[in-house]
């Protein structure tokens, strides 16, 4: 995490960054790979945008820090036209790899990809790399959210005592829908008597409404809940206050709510990002549609500190194995 609380250090870091920027003209072998992220929400949203930023940070550390991998980001780009200009700006500034972390940015990517043949673009959630149209510098990516959803669902089904499980999403679409349907399948496969109550908040930012939705589910008898996107933080708190359990997705929320979050499906973008960087160094700029799955380590199940029974752990492990080897197929 960037430490913003030390302005002096930041100023230094900033000066350094400026040096990097101004020397960008003189490209040499020693220059770091420069990666830019354009994200729709805050990189501290504890979910979608945070997942890609922290993956990239982890990769940076693994590769050797700022001198090897330079990261820039533009967050909270809710306006598509603003994002579009930002993406183009990064390309013009000579960034090597530009990640458009939202489906809505796709049009902008394809608009400009051909002008920057030596820049690698990646976008998701998506499957289209444009290679059928002769574009070869765009990657697409998506997460098989339903897989971890299924695993979470299996555990939730074993954990519930009331046989009522709640699920919360911002709006019924895309990744949210995938996750919740996988989760529901997981619950039903393990405990057909358990009921999954699904509610949508109608907003990505109204966490007070998220709280109200969470409390409603608790009032409706749910003792185990799950949910996706940044709007659920209020709901997790409601669950924690009530002593219930929570299953997370996208980012690891176990460290924030250690006693409440049983497990998180973590989007681990590291392997994908590493692959994109390696290919970039080999001169390949696109053409692959990545899918984060349990099998390719793109999805991880991270456990919190909640005591769980060995039986649950076994079931979760079994579910992961079944999904990986194809015994269980979760089509959305």
């Amino acid at each position: 995490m960037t430490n913003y609380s030390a302005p002096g250090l930041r100023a230094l870091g900033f000066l350094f960054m400026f040096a990097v920027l101004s020397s960008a003209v003189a490209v040499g072998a020693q220059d770091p790979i420069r990666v830019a992220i354009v994200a729709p929400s805050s990189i501290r949203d504890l979910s979608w945008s945070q997942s890609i930023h922290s993956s990239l940070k982890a990769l940076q550390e693994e590769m050797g820090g700022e001198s090897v991998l330079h990261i820039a980001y533009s967050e909270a780009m809710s306006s598509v036209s603003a994002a579009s200009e930002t993406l183009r700006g990064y390309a013009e500034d000579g960034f090597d790899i530009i990640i458009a972390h939202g489906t809505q940015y796709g049009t902008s990517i394809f608009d400009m990809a051909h002008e920057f043949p030596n820049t690698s673009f990646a976008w998701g959630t998506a499957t289209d790399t444009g290679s059928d149209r002769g574009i070869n510098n765009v990657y697409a990516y998506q997460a098989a959210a339903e897989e971890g959803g299924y695993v979470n669902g299996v555990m939730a089904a074993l954990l519930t005592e009331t046989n009522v499980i709640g699920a919360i999403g911002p709006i019924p679409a895309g990744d949210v829908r995938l996750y919740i349907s996988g989760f529901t399948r997981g619950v039903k496969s393990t405990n057909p008597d358990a009921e999954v109550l699904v509610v949508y908040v109608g907003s990505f930012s109204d966490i007070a409404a998220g709280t109200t939705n969470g409390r409603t589910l608790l009032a409706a008898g749910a003792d185990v809940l799950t949910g996706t996107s940044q709007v659920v933080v209020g709901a997790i708190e409601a669950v924690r206050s009530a002593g219930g359990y929570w299953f997370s997705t996208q980012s690891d929320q176990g460290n924030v709510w250690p006693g409440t979050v049983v497990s998180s499906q973590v989007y681990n973008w590291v392997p994908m990002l590493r692959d994109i960087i390696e290919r970039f160094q080999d001169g390949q700029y696109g053409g692959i549609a990545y899918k984060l799955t349990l099998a390719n380590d793109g999805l991880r199940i991270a456990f919190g500190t909640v005591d769980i029974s060995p039986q649950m752990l076994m079931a979760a492990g079994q579910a992961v194995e079944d999904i990986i080897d194809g015994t269980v197929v979760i089509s959305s």
Partner: protein
Amino acid sequence: MIQIRQKFVQRSDPLIVLAPILAILLALVLGGILLLLLGRDPILAYRAMWDGAIGNPFENTTSLANTFTRAIPLMLVATGICVAFRGGVINIGSEGQLFVGALAVVALSAQVGDSLPALVYVPLSLVVGFAGGAIWGAIPGFLRARFSVNEILCTIMMNQIAIQLLNIMLSGPLRDPSANVTQSAMLPEGVWLGRMLPPTRLHTGIFVALIATVVTWLLLWRTPIGYRIRAVGQNREASRYAGISVPVYIILALTLSGGLAGLGGAVELTGVSRRMVSGFAAGYGFSGIVVAIFGRLHPLGAIPSALLFSAMVTGAERMQRTVQVHYETIIAIQGIVVLFAVSSSMWVQRRAAKRLAIDVSMSRSDENPGSGAGDVRPAEA
């Protein structure tokens, strides 16, 4: 005495022009302090802002083109807000009207496909976009005219409803069948507005916007319809006595206002994004209000005002990108600009008005312009 008074009216106050500029400068200084607190070099940040907004147009037109591109919907939305304001109603619902206008164009293309020549398709799409926004504006207009429903609140609610409508359409009937996300399919090429300065996305919609502002100006100040809209906006009772149907022109003002916002949506859609996604043109509705106010609620004023604001926003993106200032910090600076500008410009206007008013009050202070029962009884709003 009369002669003195006329001189007063005619002598313009240099502060009228200077004040908003000073306000912006002052706000930027305050914003600079904020940036310093964040550990950023404000000079560098503002240089990035300048580069992003204008740059050096002789070398690279990209920045300027971006600024112009961004100004197109702002101009249209702000012009729409001017019409409503002149008609005596306040339209906060441009955001929703813009969405619905764009959505109407998507619906059109879903129906028509690629079967029309561009020469027909593009104008048709503009008309449909206008119509979509117009309907969304007419609803609060009708409620205002018929049931005296406060249009500010009604249009705020209509925005929320439009957002849900957008979600419904993009996850349902108008969803891109090839992707599992809330977005529409790519529009057929026949409906695209041409781009003028590739690789930038400056598109021919700028002419639509410029023409629309000029036409709106002509409409308001040169035609009987505009005369009536303004008359209703200024004095409903006198308009009624002049035989003007007040409800009709309130509805018309909000309808035209919504239509222009819808046109903004259509132009942004067919010129820039070319498919409807969630987050499409977010924030234009609100910014449009500020632009309209800066343009002194005059359609022609909306042109420079939109360019100025667009430059600020476009520059801000560059600032975020290169100096890594959080976008929301820039929003705070914009807020400060608004506060400074609105207080200073009103202050200057009032200063001028006060000079004039006192001047005139000399000849009126003893008379009785509005006493009587009408003055103290609660008026109908």
